[in-house]
């Protein structure tokens, strides 16, 4: 592949012409790289909206009683914060952005298996987003059910429930189609010689995720349709007043929404398995253990949903079984963490910004995972469920886990995507601010929860105020760190110094092609003869 050393002139995907003009060159493009970047733009936009809502909620929590908004507004805000962050940001997540951009390149393919279906997925994402946002401005006011849409409240409230639910239904299709596309791509388009155990671990993770997307997402689609139908025609599926069963809804909802947690986290775990070897200049420790643990998480993750319902009145036998299975799903995550840390052992480590984010991730995600054990245990869960403890737990897992690695990946792959580098010093400052702000904001919530502060409370008892204030100040520090980071990345993308093909000395295939990549990625499809992290080979030569 000597023609790909970057000195040869070529047309990058960013500047490629097509039969379309202007913005249509992008929004009608079937290039997986452009689609990845379009997802990134959309998701960063929704992230900023979600952050704004979170910021306002924390402001309201500064004092007991009314600080700046009434209860109805607060209830709508936490619902919208959840709906936007979950359905429009973190579920498409790393798969939609970096899966789209990097997966085909990492397996030596020129695009995904179904490029037009891929564009359709993005359009469904956009349509879902527009529907969700437009529901805010309709008569009746924004949805106030919480992102879990529990019946019977979601059947009774006069706010706009059906439209945002329908938006989530459409977003579900986007997710299913992306899943089908990635599964097919991995099975059909690997470069010659790349068997499954020569695939980068990010590919393994996105592949496992794609299966969950295909298998689990239809369940939420059905559930959503049932709620909408129930709201319109009062059939009596969920509403006890009509002979329905509200717990049926909770089961259906969590049969999707628990596996969805792994849709959110698995690709992030895959990216961690890329970044650590690159910055430690050594092969990953326990490749197969990490690969199989992704599959194990994807599989066991289907059978733990009722741990969200330990106090709902399900039978004591099911509480026993689901608690046991919940403890078991912790094991493969633990295996990953141990292997990542072991990969640093006897490496030759450069602590670049992506690695700093990964270290922060390991710390925060471990806290999230270990507090998951507290919530998996029946005695403690009964006390802590539906309190701030749960809010802290899932922000440590989702934000401290997935989103930190989303940030890490932005730094890690920015030079590949745009051919330019961010400012290292500013990036380190943003890492520091994010770390301090994050822990102030969310660690206080563990304590609040244990003291008995229920979640989704507009008002609170005066004795909780000190912790709420610390938490709110933390949100300001966290947000300034994130804004600094986004500004730095944006500046780097536009005006940063040229990065070259392989600024980190990475070994996976994306680092063998120019930055930004040419339209068809590879002039010649590479032939694979070794594993993805062969850092030892140079010494052999």
């Amino acid at each position, binding site marked *: 592949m000597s023609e790909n050393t970057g000195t040869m002139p070529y047309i990058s995907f960013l500047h490629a012409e097509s039969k379309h003009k202007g913005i249509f060159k992008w929004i009608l493009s079937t290039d997986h790289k452009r689609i990845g970047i379009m997802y990134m733009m959309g998701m960063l936009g929704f992230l900023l909206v979600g952050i704004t809502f979170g910021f306002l909620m924390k402001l309201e929590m500064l004092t007991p009683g009314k600080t700046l908004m009434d209860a109805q507004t607060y209830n709508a805000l936490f619902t919208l914060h959840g709906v936007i962050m979950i359905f429009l940001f973190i579920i498409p997540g790393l798969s939609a952005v970096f899966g789209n951009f990097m997966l085909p390149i990492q397996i030596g393919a020129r695009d995904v298996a179904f490029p037009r279906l891929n564009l359709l997925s993005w359009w469904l994402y956009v349509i879902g987003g527009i529907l969700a946002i437009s529901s805010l401005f309709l008569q009746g006011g924004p949805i106030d059910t919480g992102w879990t849409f529990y019946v019977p409240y979601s059947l009774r409230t006069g706010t706009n429930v059906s439209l945002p639910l329908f938006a989530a239904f459409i977003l579900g299709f986007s997710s299913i189609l992306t899943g089908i596309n990635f599964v097919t791509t991995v099975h059909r388009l690997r470069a010659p010689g790349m068997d499954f155990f020569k695939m980068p671990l990010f590919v393994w993770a996105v592949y496992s995720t794609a299966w969950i997307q295909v298998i689990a997402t239809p369940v939420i689609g059905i559930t959503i349709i049932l709620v909408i139908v129930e709201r319109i025609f009062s059939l009596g599926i969920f509403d006890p007043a009509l002979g329905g069963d509200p717990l049926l809804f909770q089961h259906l909802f969590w049969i999707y929404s628990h596996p969805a947690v792994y849709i959110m986290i698995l690709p992030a775990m895959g990216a961690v398995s890329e970044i650590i070897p690159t910055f430690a200049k050594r092969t990953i420790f326990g490749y197969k253990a990490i690969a199989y643990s992704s599959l194990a998480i994807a599989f066991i993750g289907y059978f733990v949903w009722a741990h969200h319902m330990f106090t709902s009145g399900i039978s004591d036998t099911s509480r026993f079984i689901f608690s046991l299975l919940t403890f078991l799903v912790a094991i493969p995550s633990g295996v990953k963490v141990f292997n990542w*840390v072991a990969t640093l052992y006897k490496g030759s480590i450069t602590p670049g910004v992506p690695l700093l984010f990964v270290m922060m991730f390991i710390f925060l995600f471990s806290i999230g995972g270990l507090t998951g054990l507290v919530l998996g245990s029946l005695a403690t869960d009964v006390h802590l469920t539906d309190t701030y403890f749960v809010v802290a737990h899932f922000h440590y897992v989702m934000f401290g886990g997935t989103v930190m690695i989303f940030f890490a990946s932005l730094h890690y792959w920015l030079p590949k995507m745009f051919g330019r580098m961010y400012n290292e010093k500013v990036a380190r400052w943003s890492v520091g601010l994010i770390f301090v702000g994050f822990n102030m904001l969310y660690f206080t919530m563990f304590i609040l929860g244990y003291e008995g502060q229920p979640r989704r409370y507009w008002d609170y008892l005066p004795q909780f105020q000190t912790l709420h204030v610390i938490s709110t100040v933390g949100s300001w520090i966290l947000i300034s760190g994130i804004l600094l980071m986004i500004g730095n990345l944006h500046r780097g993308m536009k005006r940063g110094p040229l990065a070259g093909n392989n600024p980190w000395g990475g070994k996976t295939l994306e680092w063998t092609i120019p930055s930004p990549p040419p339209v068809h990625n590879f002039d010649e499809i590479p032939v694979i003869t070794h594993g993805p992290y062969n850092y030892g080979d140079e010494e052999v030569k």
Partner: protein
Amino acid sequence: MFGQATKYAESVDSVMLLIVGISVFFLLGVTAAMIYFVIRYNKKRNPKASQIEGNTKLEIAWIVIPTALVLVMFYYGYAVFHESRVVPKGAMTVKVIARMWAWEFDYNNGKKSGELYIPVNRAIKLELNSMDVNHSLYIPAFRIKEDVIYGRENYMVIQPDKIGTYVIACAEYCGLNHSHMYSKLHVLSKKDFEKWISDN
């Protein structure tokens, strides 16, 4: 802070302590190892990385040991929780009615109250009924809650052993005034309770 009011609450706290203890040990171990490796095997100190592909014994160790530990956690969590599900003989029954956004407690003799009054040292079975949407009866000092769901009757057992007044909160989101759906639990001496219940 973290005030406990019953023996059951102490048991829950001991499960918490067990899990948090093991967790802190692992968290500090993982974090310390990570930071140590990044410093010790920095590129300047260690210019050439060793290509270690894995170690089967280690993999087995860090599957088997955590599995054993989580099974212990699971067992204690279940054993303690199980206590809270057994209705002791001679338990007094109080019917709980939840509606947006207030609690009502109905006693066998027909007395109704907006706050829950119970005698100390006697098991109480609360039968939980909702009139509209989902609620959840939560007594933080007792470390216990159970959802109150329209169309089904859940139950919850409490065994107060200290006289005092405790907070009751609604823990399942139920709309506009969810955060004001508080009530109080008054644990009275047997004598005071007899007086209260017969006083109409």
